[in-house]
């Protein structure tokens, strides 16, 4: 009997670490022209569509017969675009000082949608965020730093400063029988706002630090009233918001100002008033009617951060088209292996199937992320430049937010590609996987902004489906103290940027886990 020695190869055993697997997958990816072309197409769609949308957007304003560049909104102390339009009755204040006033009534006019076409339908009333109160402001320049304590239409007493900050005081409105006393005290850079029902018992509403407030500031009374917002369904799907003129009138008495520089005459300024086409006549002017110590101040406008659709992420709308391209590549990255039977070789070379899927996810995710990053990184600044050249204003955002938008869009593409990969591994059929991936990511978004579904349903769609991930590109936050059309159609998502993105990641992780589980259990 002879002992049989089993055959041993002289070659050293190859290494089969995870990175070898990643390298193998990367080799597969880069050698298939269609896939490289697919990812490149996705990136080019982001750039091409973004820049052509930017190039196609124009805005011009006319002043009488001449066309002039549109006015650019002022920027607040934080660098954000703001609306700073109100009626200000003020005095100079040098250094520390106090202003006290009593608001006894707040009334106003609101223009409602025309009942008979062409006939102005104006009713009495005050919009919820109409503001009347006292203010200390750096200067009468639009966008200058300020702190104010005020009575609002239906949100009670508020203390606000520097456009974005808002603190609630006592709720309830004002009337001659229950007036509201307001007091602002400046001590250096710090401004304290207080309120009182009777001028004796004072409650502090809040304090504000206005960095670098110059010694000479303006102190006085102000009234503003944002337009009345109506949202109506659009014939082509979705909804449209319209803001109509509203003005507020507050009656203020028992006004007392203390501090150096005060005590002179009151000066009235209609800060930021818009003009008629002739460029001189004010359009919807505010006014002051004074009898003795009683001031009736009427104002239009708002002192608040700007909301609206002029955001930087508008330049990245091509990401939707890029999304489909990368989903297709993600799906094919695995289904093509099944079709060409390469999967047998792959699984023979690396029997641990979950790792193969992980390596594929790493490769497709990184490739699409880098492609998306370069595409978005070029498109956003270039698109903004083109828009500016066309006279279209885009809201400035902090650098970190801008980076988040760019990297977020790239990550959106990457995660969508991985979702495609996972669904491809799960279904092993390209068409089914593509339809499911697109139906999960893009269709809810389309339904949310294009259909007749009411906004509550649209918002739920963007909370619970993978389409929530689009929230990552929202650059301007929602402000509770500004009434605006905060709807998906206007670029506002129901979830915070990272929360929305986490929903998409959660779905993708679940799909990957399910695919890995099924991959282990099934015959290839």
């Amino acid at each position: 009997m002879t002992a049989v020695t089993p055959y041993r190869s002289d070659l050293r055993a190859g290494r089969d670490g995870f990175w070898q697997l990643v390298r193998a997958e990367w080799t597969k990816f880069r050698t298939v022209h269609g896939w490289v072309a697919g990812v490149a197409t996705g990136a080019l769609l982001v750039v091409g569509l973004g820049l052509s949308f930017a190039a196609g957007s124009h805005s011009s304003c006319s002043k009488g017969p001449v066309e002039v560049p549109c006015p650019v909104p002022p920027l607040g102390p934080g660098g954000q675009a703001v609306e700073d339009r109100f009626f200000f009755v003020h005095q100079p204040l040098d250094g520390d000082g106090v202003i006290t006033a009593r608001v006894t009534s707040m009334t106003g006019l609101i223009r409602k949608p025309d009942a008979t076409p062409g006939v102005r339908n104006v009713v009495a009333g005050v919009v919820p965020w109409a503001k009347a109160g006292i203010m200390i402001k750096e200067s009468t320049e639009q966008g200058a730093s300020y702190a104010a304590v005020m009575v609002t239409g239906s949100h009670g007493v508020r203390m606000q400063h520097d456009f974005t900050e808002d603190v609630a005081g006592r709720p309830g409105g004002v009337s001659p029988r229950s007036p509201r006393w307001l007091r602002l005290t400046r001590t250096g850079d710090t401004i304290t706002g207080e309120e009182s029902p009777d001028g004796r018992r004072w409650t502090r509403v809040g304090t504000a630090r206005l960095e670098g407030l110059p010694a000479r500031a303006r102190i006085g009374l102000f009234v503003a009233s944002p337009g009345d917002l109506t949202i109506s369904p659009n014939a082509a799907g979705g909804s449209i918001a319209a803001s109509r003129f509203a003005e507020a009138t507050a009656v203020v008495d028992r006004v007392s100002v203390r501090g150096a520089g005060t005590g002179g005459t009151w000066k009235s300024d209609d800060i930021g008033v818009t003009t008629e086409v002739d460029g001189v006549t004010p359009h919807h002017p505010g006014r002051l009617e004074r009898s003795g110590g009683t001031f009736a101040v009427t104002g239009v406008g708002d002192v608040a951060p700007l909301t609206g659709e002029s955001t930087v992420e508008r330049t990245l709308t091509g990401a939707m088209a890029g999304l489909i391209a990368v989903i297709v590549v993600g799906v094919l990255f695995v289904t093509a292996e099944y079709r060409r039977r390469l999967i047998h070789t792959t699984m023979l070379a690396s029997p641990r199937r979950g790792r193969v899927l992980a390596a594929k996810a790493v490769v497709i995710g990184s490739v699409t992320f880098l492609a998306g990053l370069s595409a978005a990184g070029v498109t956003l600044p270039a698109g903004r430049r083109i828009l500016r050249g066309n006279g279209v204003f885009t809201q400035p955002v902090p650098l970190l937010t801008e980076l988040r938008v760019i990297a977020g869009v790239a990550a959106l593409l990457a995660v969508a590609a991985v979702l495609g990969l996972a669904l491809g591994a799960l279904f092993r059929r390209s068409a089914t996987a593509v339809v499911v991936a697109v139906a999960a990511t893009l269709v809810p978004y389309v339904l949310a902004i294009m259909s007749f579904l009411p906004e509550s349903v649209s918002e739920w769609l963007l909370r619970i489906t993978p389409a929530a991930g689009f929230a990552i590109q929202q650059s301007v936050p929602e402000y509770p103290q500004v009434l605006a059309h905060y709807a998906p159609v206007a670029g506002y998502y129901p979830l915070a940027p990272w929360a929305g993105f986490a929903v998409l990641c959660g779905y993708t992780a679940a799909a990957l886990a399910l695919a890995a589980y099924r991959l282990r259990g099934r015959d290839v």
Partner: protein
Amino acid sequence: MRYAVYAEWTKLRTMPGPGWLLAGTVVLTVALSAVAASSVTCASAGCGHDAARIGLQGVQLGQATVALLAVLMVCGEYGTGMIRTSLVAMPRRTAVLAAKAAVLTGLTLAAGTAAVLGSVLAGRLLLPGSGFTPAHGYPPLSPADGPTLRAAAGSVLYLALIALLSLGVATAVRDSAAATGTVLGLLYLLPLAVRMVADEEAQRLLWQLSPASAGLAVQATTDAAVLPLGPWAGLGVLAAWASAALLAGGLLLRRRDA
């Protein structure tokens, strides 16, 4: 030709996928229509909604499964290599495509009719609960009413035309993932792009050219006048898309090696 149609019918009948997809079309369409009908509210008379359009909203979702069916009909054969057998058996390639188109049209018309009737029924039952009552100027949704009948019949035709468009694209592209991506992009991205365009003229033009936006104009019953295209003209745009796609697919099928 009869045998070609019969062969396509046999191929389709003996696979589990198409049956599920047709059932899925009906279920998804009726489900989304029901969600829309129960969630859109009409608080007072003259609330500006188009009840028929809301009741038929599910077509937005049903078109995806119809497109998938059409893509699979062609690309499935390329994936498995069956196409070579089909073309050996029936060397007249346009006849193969025509047979596929005929079977597909028949099936989507049948499934579409079921889906649309289900949606109208759901709308009829659910819309009054959302405030679409005769008091607010909305009689119950009924296919006997002229504009509603046009919207319903038009939606069925819309689904069939979407299927033919997808069939043409799939024949031209051959790869199922790429074909699905292209069709879904046409159906869902073009309407989005319409929204993003700032220029009003360009927006109208793009709306008129977009197969989904223009095609769904056929569902408009109350606000047809404000849409950039009339109902039948809109469906005509989609028909032009479908014919162009079928023509391109047919020509490529004739010229290329299988």
